[in-house]
């Protein structure tokens, strides 16, 4: 098989991956692409797709995501960031089911961070880490 058999919504796959993970804390809100209107500071993560490359010789995409972890304090934001790390690194091979079908996620690796920041406009505490992962709709055998 030389390429993906369908278009994969990798952002939806990543959100589903976190929600499905056994270690995930259900009190941490997951947002993707944008902050919801009237967002109030709480334990939350904003997932931003960074793009990536398609390998035309293999049925997979290699895509990066930035995870912005928020909390009411820097310590709480760090705890969210640590939770994301646990979910990303401690179960590197898995599959999730999204609208388009089954998506296989593997070889998740951290590429940048963690970086502690303050949002310059709102002063929200934020920890940021970037990960890359392989996504495929085809199970490797």
């Amino acid at each position, binding site marked *: 098989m030389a390429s993906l058999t369908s278009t994969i919504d990798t952002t939806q796959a990543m959100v589903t991956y976190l929600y499905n993970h056994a270690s995930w804390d259900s009190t941490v809100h997951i947002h993707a692409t944008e*902050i919801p209107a009237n967002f109030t500071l709480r334990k939350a993560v904003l997932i931003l797709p960074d793009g990536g490359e398609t390998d035309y010789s293999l049925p997979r995409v290699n895509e990066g995501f930035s995870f912005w972890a928020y909390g009411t304090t820097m310590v709480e934001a760090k705890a969210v960031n640590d939770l994301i790390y646990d979910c990303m690194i401690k179960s590197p091979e898995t599959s999730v089911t999204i609208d388009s079908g089954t998506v296989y996620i593997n070889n998740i690796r951290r590429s940048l961070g963690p970086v502690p920041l303050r949002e310059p406009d709102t002063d929200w505490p934020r920890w940021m880490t970037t990960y890359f992962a392989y996504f495929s709709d085809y199970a490797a055998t």
Partner: protein
Amino acid sequence: MAEIRKTDTLYFESYIPEAISAGGYFSESLVEVLSKLVSNEAKKNVGIGKGPGPHPHRVGSKHIDYGKLRDDITTSQGREGSTYVGTVYTTLLYGMYLEMGWVTKKQNVVRYPWLIPAAFVVWKEDSEKVARDIAKHYFPESDLSIKSSLTANVKHPKRLTGTWKLQKTYRGYTR
């Protein structure tokens, strides 16, 4: 004032014996040229009149774009063990926020990555030719396999990473 230093590191690695003997000079030259090319590309991205809003080029803006970030982009070269490292960086805090993004008061997410894309452009468009040209200078007698291995290694870098190094305490947190 708290200061955050942005560092992007380009690595070149070689396991070829002939390359190792003269590879130091080759690698040194390579990272120097590549880091300057990345710097030039990054400066284009943050040139006067470029960038996300609120920005001077927007109608009604009271801001003036002096090109401060562009002028602050700096390169340096060094060695970490057997690895030659070219660094492209700025010490301006807002350069980091542009690169990594922030949430505005209206809760819009704004990102304007100007440095990592510059590095990727150089890797994709210039690195192979640069490596080949420099290899001709340092390995004039070498066979083609060495040159092709060198350029292949550069063409598919094992590591092209972005790291943020906090140089001083920033709001109570250090790394």
